[in-house]
């Protein structure tokens, strides 16, 4: 029997101090105990050294992306900043058709941040990384003075591989294509707004925060002709559609009655005068497929947990280029423009 007693912690105190960023023993202990003991990178060097068979395939492409994460509160129903940092970067790779392989994780930590909070965030990153089949292979920490950050900011970069022949891109979208979302919209934005507490709303809403690489692989396998996909994060579905319509030089029309929303998200929007099309998502994407492949794509999505509620919400038109409209439930039509700044709650 191999009974090893748990290693006694060398960390002093419950909170991060400037000493933890000073390059000395305190920093080494923080990094060892909170980060590397969990992520267990293979290399002790300052760099990850990586090989993968998929990279050796002729015609394969390397995909590389980076994203910074700031969210208040850092822990919220359905996730935390660590889970988002993994999902966000995994999804940025996946929507381009890449199979995500490796992530880096850099932390800007505010003096006074609870070490227990960091441990929870790191555990949640590792759990999500496992789930998504990626490895966190390198990282960094910095400590800044009180007030210079809000508890903790996380930056993740990701590397993946795009197999030969895959070319998901906005410019491939063509008139007649069908737009599909993998599930309900606005959960993340509404959940965060409620969790912040300054509007004193209480809901059972959870962030939709999830990795979408499994879903994308399933769709591409069923429908290799998938044109393009985007995760509808900041600025919501409306912003993603506008970006895609502009890049592809097409118009997009969505159908209000088809846009899936949870009743609570509707409730938050009605109370605060917000438009759910602009609420942020962290595990919701929109993708475009040729019309005759829509059923096959939906079928493949429905078989995955992230795509159970997938539904077609609209189609691509001839133009004018960049115009996104919505057929209202009344049969009227309205423009769905890019958001100006941030959506603010309103009373009138």
């Amino acid at each position, binding site marked *: 029997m191999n009974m090893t007693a748990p290693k006694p912690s060398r960390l002093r105190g419950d909170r991060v101090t400037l000493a933890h960023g000073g390059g000395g023993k305190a920093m080494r202990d923080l990094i060892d105990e909170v980060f590397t003991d969990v992520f267990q990178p293979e290399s002790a060097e300052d760099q990850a050294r990586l090989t993968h068979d998929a990279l050796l395939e002729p015609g394969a492409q390397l995909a590389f992306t980076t994203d910074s994460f700031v969210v208040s509160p850092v822990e919220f129903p359905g996730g935390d900043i660590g889970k988002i940092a993994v999902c966000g970067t995994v999804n940025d790779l996946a929507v381009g058709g890449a199979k995500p392989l490796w992530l880096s994780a850099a932390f800007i930590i505010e003096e006074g941040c609870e070490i227990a909070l960091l441990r929870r965030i790191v555990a949640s990153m590792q759990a999500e990384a496992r789930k998504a089949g990626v490895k966190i292979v390198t990282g960094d920490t910095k400590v800044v003075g009180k007030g210079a950050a809000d508890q903790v900011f996380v930056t993740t970069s990701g590397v993946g591989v795009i197999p030969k022949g895959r070319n998901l891109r906005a410019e491939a979208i063509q008139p007649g294509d069908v737009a599909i979302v993998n599930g309900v919209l606005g959960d993340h934005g509404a959940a965060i707004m*409620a969790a912040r507490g300054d*509007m*004193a*709303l*209480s*809901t*059972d809403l959870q962030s939709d925060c999830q990795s979408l690489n499994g879903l994308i692989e399933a769709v591409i396998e069923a429908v290799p002709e998938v044109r393009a996909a985007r995760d509808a994060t900041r600025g919501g579905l409306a912003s993603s559609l506008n970006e895609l319509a502009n890049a592809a030089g097409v118009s997009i029309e969505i159908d209000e009655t088809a846009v899936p929303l*949870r*009743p*609570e998200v*509707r*409730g*938050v929007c*009605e*109370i605060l*005068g917000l438009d759910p099309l602009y609420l942020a998502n962290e595990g919701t994407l929109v993708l475009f497929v040729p019309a005759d492949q829509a059923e096959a794509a939906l079928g493949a999505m429905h078989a995955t947990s992230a795509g159970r509620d997938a539904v077609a919400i609209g189609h691509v038109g001839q133009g004018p280029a960049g115009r996104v409209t919505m057929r209202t439930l009344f049969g009227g039509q309205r423009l769905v423009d890019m958001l100006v700044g941030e959506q603010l709650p*309103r*009373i*009138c």
Partner: protein
Amino acid sequence: MCLGIPGQIVEITDDERLMAMAEVSGVRREVNVACVATGPLDELLGKWALIHVGFAMSVIDEDEAAKTLEALQGLGEAQETLEAMADGQSALEGTQ
């Protein structure tokens, strides 16, 4: 102007300050019920009120709501009757 939304009063939270919990589509928010408190606060439980900036401003008159919908329905029926009459008329004209 003046965003307002129907919410159901589900709980009295503070008798003294006239506060209650209102629920809108699964979202809860504490609201002031001074404007609609005509009797004991418990009588408000289950009622629907128009909520504006955290205040229950008016209890929804369910009979009036039904009447408005009936009037709309009535329009539909009148329309059908007119169409039926028009069809009948053209049918008659067709036989002449």
